[in-house]
Each structure stands twice: as C-alpha cells, then as structure tokens.
C-alpha cells in the first residue's frame, strides 16, 4: 500500500480545530467546543493507528512533498513530511497521550471561563507538535519547534489575570527563544556547508564523506544541543519548566511532561548521524544529561508544591534520556521517552485530580490521608510512582535500567562514572516519589479548615471527593500503559527480545552488544532495584514511621536545606548576572546617555552653533548708517585688493 498516506492531514486537522474553536468558540456552547476539540485530536490518532497497523507493508523511508515553502537564489525549503519508525513512535505518543489529556481536561477545565480558548490553544499545540515530528527538513521542524514554544506561552499564560502566569509564560517563551537561537545558528551552518536543510540530503552527504570528523560537524552538533537544552529544559536553560507549572495541570501533563519537552531528545535522535561524527558533542550531551538529572533530583527532594516536585522529576528524567543519547544508546533513549510519557502524564493527571479533589490546594504539607477518600486516583498514582522509581515489572524499570546498562558498557571513558551518578539519582528519584506518595496519601489529613490560597478559582468547597469518570478513565488507561509499557523493550538478558531496539535499529543503527554479556546486565538490574528499594525504605522511615524526622533533619543541615529549597538560587543568579545588567545598560547607558545625549544632543548642538553664527552675523546690523558705510568702504577696498592681488592667482575658486 504505497499510495499516499496523506501525512499532511495529521497536523492539519488539529489546525482546523484550532481555527474553528479560535474564531467561533466564543459563541459555541461548551459541548460543541469539546466535540470539535476531541474530534480534531481523535482523527489524527486513528490515522496514525491505521498507519501503525499497515506499517510493515510500507516502503521506508516514506516522504511526502506537499509544496515549496521558500525558494530564493540557491536556497530551497519546502513543506515536506516524512515517516519512519522513530516518527511512528513519536506520533503514537503525541496523538495517544494527547487525546487522553484532551478527554481529561474536559473534566478538569469544566468550570473555567475561556473554556473554548483553552481547547483552541491545545489544538494549536497538537498542530505544531505534529508538524515538528513529521517534518522532513530542519526548517519545517523549526516551524514546529517555535510553534510549540508559542503554544506553551499561550497555555502557561491561560489565566489572564494572574501576573505570575504571564511572567512564567514570557520567561518560557524567551528561554525557548534562546534555545531557538542555537537551532537557527545550527541551520545556518548546515546551509553554509550542505546548501540544504532536508534531512535525507544532509544525512546522505554526511554518509558519503566518512572523512568529515568533528570540526564544523561538532559546531553544528553543539548548536543543536543548545537548542535541545532550551526546549527540553536541561542545564542551563531549564529555569522555565518549574515556573511553567503556573498553567493548568493538563497543560503541564501534555506539554511539560509528555510531548514538548521530549522534542529536544527526538531532534537529537533524528540527527544522530551528525552527533555520531563528533564524540565531543556526544559526551557533552551525556554530561549535561547526568548533571541535570542529579541537580533536578536534589531540588525535588525538598519541594513542597506537588506540581513543582513533578516538574523537577521531569527535568531529571529528561536528563536520563539525554544521558542515553550521550552514550549513543538512542533506542533506549526513545524507549525511556515512551515510558516516561506514560507514567509522567499519569503522575501529573493524578496530581491534577488530587488538586481538583482538594479544590485547588497544591501544597503537600497541607495534604495527607487521601488514600481512602480518592482510591482510584490513589491506585493509579501508586502504579505511576512504582513505575518511575524503577520497580520491575513496571515500565520505568526496564527503560531506566536499559539506559544505566548502556551507560555502564558504553565505550567512552566517562561511562562508569555516569552510570554511578545515574544509579544514585535513581535512588533519589524513588525517595522523592515515595515522599510525595506518603505525604499525599498516608498519615492523617493536615488540611486546615480554610484552604490556604485558592488560585485556580475552581475549588468548589464541599469536602474531598473523587473526580468524575471523565477524568479517571484516562488515569486508568495511562496506569495500564505505565504497567505494560515497559514490556515492549525487555532486554534478552531478562527473557524479552527488545522489540523496540530492533524496531528502531534502521533509524538509530544497531545497538552494540556488550562483551560481558547477559550476566552483567542481570547483575546491574539487581543493583538498580536494590537502590530503588533503599530509596523507598528511607522515604517510608521518614514520612511514614517517624513524621517528625524530616523537620529535625532539616534543622540540622539548615544551610543545605535552604539551598535546595531555593533551587540553588539559580533564578536569582540569572536575574542578577544577565537580566538586571541588560536592563540597566539599555535604560541608562543606551537610552539615557547615548540616545538623548549623543543623537539628540548632537542635533541640538549643530542647531545652536548655527544660530550662534547667525547671531554673530547679525551683529553687523547695528542700525547706524555710518557703520554701514564703513562696512561698504571696507568691502569695496577688499574687492579692489582681491582684484589687484588676485591678478592670476586661481586661489580657491575651484
């Protein structure tokens, strides 16, 4: 069935949804808005599922050239879509998780005013994400890349009246733009060296020239990394993700957990041909990934807001994916992306359901004892907590373990150290996840009578209750997926046959087999499980057995605790080092001193000096006839002198 798959339809339907809701949504009833939004997400999911079923019979790589976008001189870029194994997985994740979250947000956003605006922006996001994933050249990917940044800006700033939301939105967009700056420079280098931006041509040229090692390829790779860190919230450009929690929870789930933030990883895997040629770039990715994982995990330990904890855990898990790409284990990176999409979306949605239940309350110190009150949310969240902490047989265990294993056996020198830090972070992950788990669901309820701050305005005050079914079904589905999601990639060592690695091998190249063989893999898996258990045990000890312990511990290491609580003061550091001086210079030096001083001042100076000369000239007119006659006589004498002296001297009158 090699007939055209109409790939262009996949992004276009959500865009149509956006247009319909955007333009006419205000006058539509809520139900109509919901149906339009859901259909606009369902159709691409169905189409992708259909493609997935017939996938084996496709001739790959399948590209679809819709129209030329820009042609100027010898530069050419067009609207072209491509499909291969990697795209298929990403499509499945985006449409699948996207559709579930759409259903969830029907319930979650029911009472919000501007309901239609939310779904319009959500559909817009789907359009840009699908364009990003399906793009066949860097420029179209950049369209998606900036587009998702825009959608996240709109959705973070959805609550118009909240200043903090607007600030967070602006921060997200600007930091993304810094990442896009890197992406742009990479594209310019590509144009300079390859003359084109389409993936197939670039990769063919790279393949034909084995002698190209590093040099400009490293430069391109490094700039791509800068772009990726911007989008996937890695050090140093991760600062916007925690603030992005200002947006509604479904947004955090969809954009800031499952799809948008993984765009960086997808881009690295898509362009792995370039990265393979520069070991330096690969090791930078690995180092950045590991460092971010550890760094975010440590901050996550002490956070009190439930969504902030999940945000830092997302940054940390993305660190793992970057680590996987860093050690050239691209398929395991994608595998972790897949599983992470399931359980992280589940965590956010269940957290949303918890917040919904507590009518807007997000501070864990005020929660507790919800196990009985919201059982289904409890059980689904438990599945997710076990998955993320890396307990077999849940999804998280297989994908995270695969990454650690690949790190351990990776040829480049840092492998062992990275593995160890990864392991330690896995322990921290299980600790803060179970901390969250205990604080939210166990112990007695610490909710004071008046809920502290009701910033969402949608908490209907009558007691804690389980969310409606429209919110719970996605939770259940995602819980199932988090459970069985991992089985797709069970390594041979544990009896599975790593379907996902084989499935992705045509795109990411064959995963290299380790010399030590299976026993080593089993040993490492065991080690990681024990670390997860230790993490759980400590969390159990501190938050279940002796609830007073954390306070004492915190008072003993006061300095470290406040350091972590205030997120290493990174935001303040950026503000002081970059933002404040920039504003200061532009306000006083540029605007004050230079613009008014030099430019306007210069003009005025010329004006006044001319007027001064004019005054000088005017003084001759003293009004007295005799002085006039004097000037006349002098003029006459001067003229006569010039005639006589000027006899033959062509002085100046050129």
């Amino acid at each position, binding site marked *: 069935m090699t007939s055209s798959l109409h790939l262009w339809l996949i992004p276009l339907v959500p865009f149509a949804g956006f247009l319909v809701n955007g333009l006419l949504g*205000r006058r539509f009833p809520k139900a109509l808005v919901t149906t339009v939004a859901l259909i606009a997400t369902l159709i691409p999911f169905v189409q992708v599922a259909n493609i997935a079923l017939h996938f084996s019979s496709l001739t790959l790589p399948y590209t679809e050239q819709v129209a*030329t*976008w*820009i*042609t*100027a*001189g*010898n*530069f050419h870029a067009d609207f072209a879509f491509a499909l291969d194994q990697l795209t298929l997985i990403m499509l499945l994740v985006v449409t699948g998780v996207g559709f579930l979250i759409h259903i969830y947000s029907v319930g979650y956003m029911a009472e919000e005013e501007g309901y239609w605006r939310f779904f319009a922006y959500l559909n817009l996001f789907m359009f840009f994400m699908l364009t990003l994933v399906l793009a066949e050249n860097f*420029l179209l990917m*950049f*369209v998606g890349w*900036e*587009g998702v940044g*825009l959608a996240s*800006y709109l959705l973070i*700033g959805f609550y*118009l*009246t*909240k*200043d903090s*939301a*607007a*600030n967070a*939105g*602006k921060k997200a*967009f*600007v930091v993304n*733009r*810094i990442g*896009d*700056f890197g992406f*742009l*420079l990479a*594209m*310019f*280098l590509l*144009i*300079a060296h390859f003359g084109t931006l389409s993936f197939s041509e670039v990769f063919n040229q790279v393949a034909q020239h084995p002698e190209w090692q590093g040099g400009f390829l490293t430069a391109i790779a490094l700039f791509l990394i800068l772009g990726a860190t911007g989008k996937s919230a890695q050090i140093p450009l991760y600062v916007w993700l925690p603030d992005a929690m200002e947006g509604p929870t479904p947004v955090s789930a969809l954009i800031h957990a499952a799809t948008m933030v993984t765009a960086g990883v997808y881009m690295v895997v898509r362009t792995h041909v370039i990265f393979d040629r520069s070991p330096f770039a690969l090791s930078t990715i690995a180092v950045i990934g590991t460092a971010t994982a550890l760094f975010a995990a440590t901050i996550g330990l002490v956070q009190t807001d439930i969504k902030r904890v999940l945000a830092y855990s997302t940054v940390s898990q993305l660190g793992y994916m970057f680590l996987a790409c860093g050690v050239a284990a691209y398929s395991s990176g994608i595998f972790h992306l897949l599983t992470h999409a399931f359980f992280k979306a589940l965590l956010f949605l269940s957290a949303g359901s918890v917040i919904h239940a507590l009518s807007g309350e997000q501070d864990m110190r005020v929660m507790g004892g919800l196990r009985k009150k919201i059982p289904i949310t409890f059980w689904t969240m438990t599945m997710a907590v076990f998955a993320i902490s890396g307990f077999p047989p849940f999804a998280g265990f297989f994908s995270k373990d695969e990454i650690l294993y690949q790190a351990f056996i990776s040829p480049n020198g840092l492998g062992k150290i990275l593995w160890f830090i990864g392991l330690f972070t896995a322990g921290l992950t299980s600790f803060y996840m179970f901390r969250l788990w205990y604080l939210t669901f166990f112990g007695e309820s610490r909710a004071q009578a008046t809920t502290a701050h009701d910033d969402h305005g949608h908490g209907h005050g009558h007691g804690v209750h389980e969310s409606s079914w429209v919110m719970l079904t996605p939770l259940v589905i995602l819980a199932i997926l988090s459970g069985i999601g991992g089985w797709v990639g069970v390594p041979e060592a544990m009896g599975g046959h790593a379907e996902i690695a084989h499935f992705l091998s045509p795109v990411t190249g064959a995963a290299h087999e380790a010399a030590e063989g299976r026993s080593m893999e089993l040993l490492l898996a065991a080690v990681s499980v024990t670390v997860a258990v230790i993490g759980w045990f400590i969390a159990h000890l501190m938050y279940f057995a002796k609830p007073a312990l954390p306070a004492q511990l915190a008072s003993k290491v006061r300095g470290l605790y406040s350091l972590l609580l205030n997120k290493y003061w990174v935001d303040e550091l950026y503000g002081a080092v970059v933002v404040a001086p*920039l*504003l200061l*210079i*532009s*306000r006083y030096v*540029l*605007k004050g001193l230079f*613009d008014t001083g030099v*430019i*306007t001042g*210069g*003009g005025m100076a010329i004006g006044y000096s001319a007027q001064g000369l004019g005054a000088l000239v005017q003084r001759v007119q003293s009004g007295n006839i005799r002085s006039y006659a004097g000037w006349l006589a002098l003029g006459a004498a001067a003229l006569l002198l010039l005639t006589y002296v000027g006899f033959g001297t062509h002085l100046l009158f050129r």
Partner: protein
Amino acid sequence: MLNDSILSTITFVPTVGAIVVALLPRRGKLIQWFTLLISLLTFALTLHLPAHFQYGQTGFQFEENHPWITSPNIHYHLGIDGISLWLVVLVGFLGPMAVLASWKVIETHTKEFYFLFLLQQTAMIGVFVSLDMFLYYGFWELSLVPMAILIAMFGRNRGPQAAIKFFLYTFLPSALLLVGLIWLYAKTGTFDFVETQQYLSQNSGSIAPQALWWVSLAFLVAFAVKVPVFPLHGWLSDVFSEAPTAMAMVVAGKLGLYSIIRFNLGLFPSQSREVAPLMIALAVIGILYGALIALVQQDMKRFIAFSTIGHLSFCTLGIFCFTIVGLNGTVYQLLNHELSGAAMLILFGILYERYGTYDMGLYGGVATRLPRMATLYLITMLSLIGLPILNGFVGEFLILSSTFGVHPYWGAAATLGVILSAAYMLGMIQKIFYGQPSQLVANKTVPDVVAREGFALVPAVILMLVLGVASPYWIRAISGAVSGLAQNVAHATATFTTTVAEKR
C-alpha cells in the same frame, strides 16, 4: 495599450483625488469616503501590475519614456522591475488601511489632512516608479513636504519642532545627493538611470575614483537617513510620537532601502563593496540598539519607533551581504515589516482612540476587556518577532542565513536580535494586556474592535499568514531583479579586488 500608461495613472490618480478633495465641501464624512474611494481605486490599479508582469524578463517593464526638458537632458521616464513592483502594490495596499485608521481620530482640518495624505501617496509611488534621476529626486523631496506639514498640524505637543527636525534630517543630506546627481550629469550628460548605469560600468576607469567615492557616499548618507540606519535615526522616535498614525505608517523604511538597492548597488557596486563592512557593523548595532532601547521604552509610539529601527537594520544587513538570497530576503523583509509595522501602529492608534494615552505603564489587563483586540495584537506581534508560519520569519531567515554565510560572527550577533525582539514584544503585550485590569482600564468601558477597524486590520492579518506560507509567489518577481543586481556587484568585486590590491 494600458500597459504603457498604467504607471502614470497609478502615480497621478491620488493627485487628482487631492485636487478634488480640496474642492469638496466640509460636510460630514464626505471627504473621508471620497479619499477611501480614491485609495481603493489606486490599490486596484496597482493590482494590475503583478497580473501583467512577465516574470522571466530582466530589465524594466511598463516603461514610459517621454522627453520632458531639453536643455538639461531630462526625460519623464517611468518603469518598474521585480523590486519596485511589490513596493508599489504595498503603497497601494497601505492607502485604504491608513484612511480607515484615521477615520475617527482626525476630526478637525480633515480637508487639509486628506489633501496632504493623497499628495504623499503620489510622492511615494513616484519615487518607486521613476527611472529618471531628476524625476526621482523630485518625488523624493516632494515626499517630505506633506509629511512635515501634517506633523506640524497634528502633532500632540511638540509637533512643529518634530516637523522641522524631520525635514532637516532628510533635507540636508539630500542637498548633497543633489550635488552628486548634478556631478553625475556633468560626467554622463544624462539623468536616465539605465544610461548612467551603463556609462559607469563601462568607463569606470576614466572617472577619478576619489570623486566617485564621495558621490557614492553622498548617495548612501542621503538614503541611510531615510531608512534610518543606526547613527542617523535621531528623527524617527520624535516623528513616530508626533505624526498621526496614517503618516507614521509610511515614513520609515521603504523609500530609503529601495533607493540604496536601486542606486547605491545599481550605480556604485564597487564603492558599496568598500563601504559594506561599515554598513554591516552599523546594521548589527542598529538591530541590538533598537531592541535594547525598545525593551525599556514606556511610550508606545517610541517603542514601535525603536522596534522599527531594529527590524529595518535587518534589511540594511541583508543588502550589504550582496548575496542573491540576502537581497531577496531584504526586499521580502521590507515588504513584511512595512505591513506588520503599519498594522501595529494602527493597533496602537485605535488603543489610543479608546484610552487616550500612549503610556504603557497606565495600561494592564486589557485582554479581559477587549479579547478581539488582544488577538489582533498577538498575531501582529508574532509576525513582527518572526514566528515561522507568519510573514516576519521568511525575510529574517533569508537575511540571517546569507549574512552567516558571508560574515559568521556578525550573523551570530544579528541572530541575538531575535531573542531581544521576543523579549521586548512580549514585555509590551504583558504590560498592556495581561495581569489585573489597571485603574485606567477598569473604570472605562470601551467597545472592542469595530467593523471599520476590522476592515483595516483583518485583511492585513490574513495577508501576514498568506505571505508567511506562500512566499514563492512574491519572491519569484523579486529574485529576477535582485539576481541581476547581485551579478553586477559580483562583477564589480572583480574590479574591486584589483583596486584594493593596488591600494595596499
């Protein structure tokens, strides 16, 4: 038959309209409706051009060449090529938008306003279509007068000073431009652009290089002031804050940039090559300088003025890379920025109509009151900062990629401008639209976007999307003319490198 008189009709329909406006009685909105009719008619006529434009052909089309004055050999010579084609259509398109924008804001002296407005239209179209340098200089100077008088009449508080400053800033360098023109006439014996171009390219050896250098500098300075390029931008923020919206829309950018492309690159390729490093440096500084000051501007009109300086510096950057891609990007970016810049100015204008102040500090939370206005602002803002599917991105990308190819470090510095533009634009949107409704906004109920304003802005917004997505239709015409220019600059560089070699 129509083809050889279309340009004259397009140029002089507004003048005829102006004369009729002068005679109309001052009853009700008669003058406004009539001016709208005239501007729509002009726009329709300009649409005739792209319809009958032969894309493959190089050189000028729709040419009209009649002798005008014999003793100094001056001809009435009109013609357009790929570059000026779309600029004429742009002026046509902006006409009706301007009239709609100033429908309600201009209540007193409407007759004078619309008379001078139509005169300004003729002057601008004249600049783009005239190929005889005397005629060109005529229209170039004429375009100053209506603008200056309108600024003086309708300035908010420092109208007269701003008018004089604007006039002087452009008039003084154009006086030197006239010296250059006459000097060229003394050498070539004709004012015709094409003949002068041939003459200069054939026997560039015989003319004293030093004198030619000064003449090209005079040309460049006169045009750079109008763009405005970085150090010569003193007049722009005053004019923007004083001029009525309809005038501020058309004042910056196109005349200066078009003239640099047409005359500096056309007549003095090797001199432009020599001055290129300086101009690129000024352009990049302009980008960053404009963006940084826009970041801290509190007055809306000055904000848009510095943002315009930033964006137009992109175009100057594109010109002086001398690559076909860059030049295409420049002309396209010029088209798009004029469109989006005009739309943004109109938006500021209608906001001023409602709340009566341009100070951003007083605004806040307008989005809750005027959602449709907020959407229009959002889309225009996105197009200005270069969101990919909108029109701002295509030009910017082409310029930056070509600059990066020629001067990587300057290219990288210019790309920083992309970040800053996002920062200050979003800052503006947040100050005005998001957050709690400010005291000014809260207790004043104003209508959202009315039909009249909708007619002015919605076509512009749709065009932003269409220009962003379907750019080959426009670039096809531009690249034809531009590749000719790039070749003769490249050819000149051959001679240039030799002259540089000798100099060392």
